[in-house]
C-alpha cells in the first residue's frame, strides 16, 4: 500500500455522492413508474364492494372462506368458479388453474387479482392459510 498525500477530497466525494444518487434515482424511478402495476391493495369483501366502480381493474387481495357448495369446475375452459364468504358478504371468484391442494370447503383463502365489471373476481393467485394447528408453512400459491 503506497503512502499518498491526502488529496483534496472534494472531487472524489462528489463522484461518490453522484454515484449513490444515480443508483437511488434509478431505483426510485423503477419503483414509482410502475406504481399502479405493482400495488396490490388488501381489503375485505365489504370494502371491495363499497369501492366500486373505482376499484375495477386494480390489483386487489381479498380474504374469506370458501363455500364448498359453490365450487364448480369448468373443464372446457379450465376455470374454477366458487364463492368466497366473509360474514354476510359473498364474492364470486373465477380462477384459471387446477385446484390447489388446500382448496376445499371452509378453507380460509386469500384471492389476489382484479374485480371485473361483471361482478366476478378474476383471481390470478389463490393463497391459503395453513391449518391452525400447524404453524409450519403450507405454500399452495398458484401463479
Amino acid at each position, binding site marked *: 500500500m503506497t503512502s499518498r498525500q491526502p488529496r483534496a477530497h472534494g472531487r472524489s466525494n462528489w463522484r461518490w455522492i453522484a454515484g449513490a444518487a444515480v443508483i*437511488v434515482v434509478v431505483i426510485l424511478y423503477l419503483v414509482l413508474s410502475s406504481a399502479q402495476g405493482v400495488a396490490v391493495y388488501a381489503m375485505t369483501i365489504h370494502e371491495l364492494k363499497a369501492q366500486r366502480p373505482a376499484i375495477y381493474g386494480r390489483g386487489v387481495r381479498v380474504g374469506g372462506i370458501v363455500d364448498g357448495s359453490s365450487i364448480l*369446475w369448468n373443464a372446457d375452459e379450465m376455470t374454477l368458479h366458487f364463492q368466497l364468504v366473509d360474514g354476510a358478504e359473498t364474492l364470486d371468484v373465477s380462477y384459471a388453474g387446477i385446484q390447489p391442494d388446500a382448496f376445499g370447503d371452509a378453507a380460509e383463502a386469500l384471492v*389476489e387479482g382484479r374485480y371485473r365489471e361483471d361482478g366476478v373476481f378474476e383471481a390470478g393467485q389463490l393463497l391459503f392459510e*395453513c391449518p391452525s394447528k400447524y404453524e409450519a*408453512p403450507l405454500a399452495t400459491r398458484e401463479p
Partner: protein
Amino acid sequence: MPPLIVAGYGALILVMCTALYSALAALWGARRAQPRWVRRAERGLIATAILFALAAAALLYLLLSRDFRVKYVYAHTSAAQSPIYVISALWAGQEGSLLLWALFVGAVSAMATAAQRERGTAAWPFVLATLAAVQAFFALMLLTVQNPFVVMSIAPADGLGILPTLENPGMVVHPPILFLGYATYSVPFASALAWLLVGHSAPSSEELQQLRRWSISAWLFLSAGILIGAWWAYTELGWGGYWSWDPVESASLLPWLAGTAFLHSLLAQERLGMFKGWNAALPIGIFVLCIFATLVTRGGLIISDLHGFSQNIQPVAYLLLGFIAVVTASAGLLLWRRRAALADAEQPERLLSRASAVLVTNLLFLGLAGAILLGILFPNLSQRIWGMRIHLNRSFYDRVFAPLGAVTVLLIAVCPLLGWRRSSWRSIRRRFSFPALVALATAAATLALAKTHPFVVLALALIAFAASLTVGRLIDILRRTEWRPAQGAKRSAIWMARRSLGAQLVHLAILLIAVGIVGSSALKAERLVTLSAGQRTEVLNYTLEYEGLQVLDEPARRRHIAAIAVYRGDARVATLRPERNFHWNIDAFVSEVSVRSTLADDLYVSLGQPGSDGSVAFRVSVYPLVVWLWIGGAVLLLGTLIAVWPTRRNERTAA
C-alpha cells in the same frame, strides 16, 4: 417435572449467567488490563457453547422419546413419524430453531475463542464481550418468550406430527445451514464492533485475513441455505417456482446482498486500504439483517402469505426489535465518533478502475437490499401512512432486479479486467472481440430457437459476453500458475491463485444462475389441460399422452398416480408420474409434481382434480434452462470453498 426438562431449561439459565459473567469479565479485564480476567471470559464462552449443546441435546432426546407432555414435542412430532423428521423437528418450530441458532452462535464463538487464544490484542476482550452479549440475548429469548421446554398439564396420546409438505430432505437441510450462515456472521460482527469500540481503524493484514475467512465461511453457508430453500420450493411446493418474493424468503436475501458487498469491499481494503468506513459498518449491518430476517420469520410483525395471514405480533418481536434498535444506534454513534479515523486517505479516482467498481458494487447491492426491504415493509408502512395495507407484487421485484441484474452482469464481465487504480480503455477493448462474437452467437441462437422479447435476447447475450470473459480469465489464472519454476514462488502463486480462481468460479456461477433465472422466467411455457386416458397434448416441442390413473391405498394416505408418456417427435423420452394424494391425518390432498430435467429445460407436470367423466386436469409447464440455476449453485459453493480453503503457514509467508 421430568429431569430432562429441568436439565434443558437449567442449561439455558446457566448460559445466561455464564454469558453475562463472560461479558463482564472481558470488560473488566480490558479496563484493568488484567489478562486473567480475559482468560476467564474465554473459558466462559467455551462453557456457553457446551451448555447450549446440552440444552439442544435435551430437546432432541425429548423429541426422539416422543414425550408429548412437552408442548414443543406435541406440536412437531407424532408416534408414527420417521426418525429423520423427528430429528428435524428440532428446528421445525420457532423455539427449537431459535435454540439451534443459539447453539451455532455458541459454537462459532467457541471456535473463534479457541483460534484467537494466542493472539491477544486491545480489541480482543471486546470481541469476547460482544459474543457473550449476543449469547445472553439468545438465552433471554429462550428463557422467556420462546421456551422450548414448556410442559402441558395433560399428556396427549399422540402428537400433531409434521405437515406432509415438510417431509422432504429440504426441510432437514435448509434451516440448519441458513442458521449456520447467520450465526457465523456473529464473529465479523463482534470484530467490527470491538474495533470501533477500541478505535482500531487500521487492521493488520493478518486481522483482515481472519475477518475475510469468517465472512466467506458465513457467506458460503448463507448461499447454500438460500439455494437449498429455492430448490426445495421448486421440487416440493408444486407451483414451479423457486422464489416467490415472500417476505420470509426475501429477508434472507438481505444479509446475503450485504455480505456480497462486504466481501468485495474487504478485498479493496486489503489491496488499497480503502473503504475502511464501509468495512466497519457492513459486518454490523449484516448481523443486524440476520436478526431482522429472524424477526420477519418469527415475529409476526410482517405478514407472510406462505406462513399465515393475520398480523399477530409475537412477544419475541419486541425483543428482536429492541436488539436491532440498540445495536444500530450504538454502531451509528461509534461510527460517527470514529469518522476521522475511518476516513480513507485515498479515494477511487478513476472511474475505470477496480476500486471504483467495488464502490459501485457496494452501492448497487445495498440499493438492491434497500429495494427488497421496502418491499417487505411496504404493507406495514402503507398501513401507517395511508391506513391501507398495500402489497408490492412480483412485478415490483422484477422491475428492480432485471436492469440492476444486468448491471451486475456487466460488472462481473469488466471488473477482472480492470487495474486496481486505473486501466486503459484500449487494453480492455482488445479483450472484448472474442466475447462479443460469443454474445452475437448467443443472440442469434436465442432468436432462432425462441420467440421472445428483445430484452431477453439482450440479457442472454450480455450473460454470454460476461461468461466468455470470465472463462477467459479462469484459463489465464490456471495457465499462469502452472509454470512457476522456483519452489517459494510457485507456492505463493498457487495461494494467490486459489483466491482468484475461487472468485472467478463464483462469478461464473452467478452467471449460470442468471441464465437459469432468465430462461425459466422469460422463456417458460405453461398449459392447463383436461385429458382423458389416451388423449394427447402439446407444449413447446413436447407431446404428452395421458395413459391412466392408478389408485394405491397406503396406511397414511391414498395415492392417485397418473402416468404420462412424454414424446419428442415420435420418440418416447420419459414417463412422468405426478401424484395427488389424500392424507388421512390432515384430511386434505397433497400433490407431488413430476419433473423431467435436461440441460435444455425442465418438463414439470402437476396433477389436478378429476372431472366427472374420468378425465383429469393437468398443469404442464416447461421451464427452459432452469437446471443451470442448480448447476450454478453447485459451482458457487465449490468456488467459495476453493477461495476460503485454509493455507499452510509456509505458503502464507512466501506470499
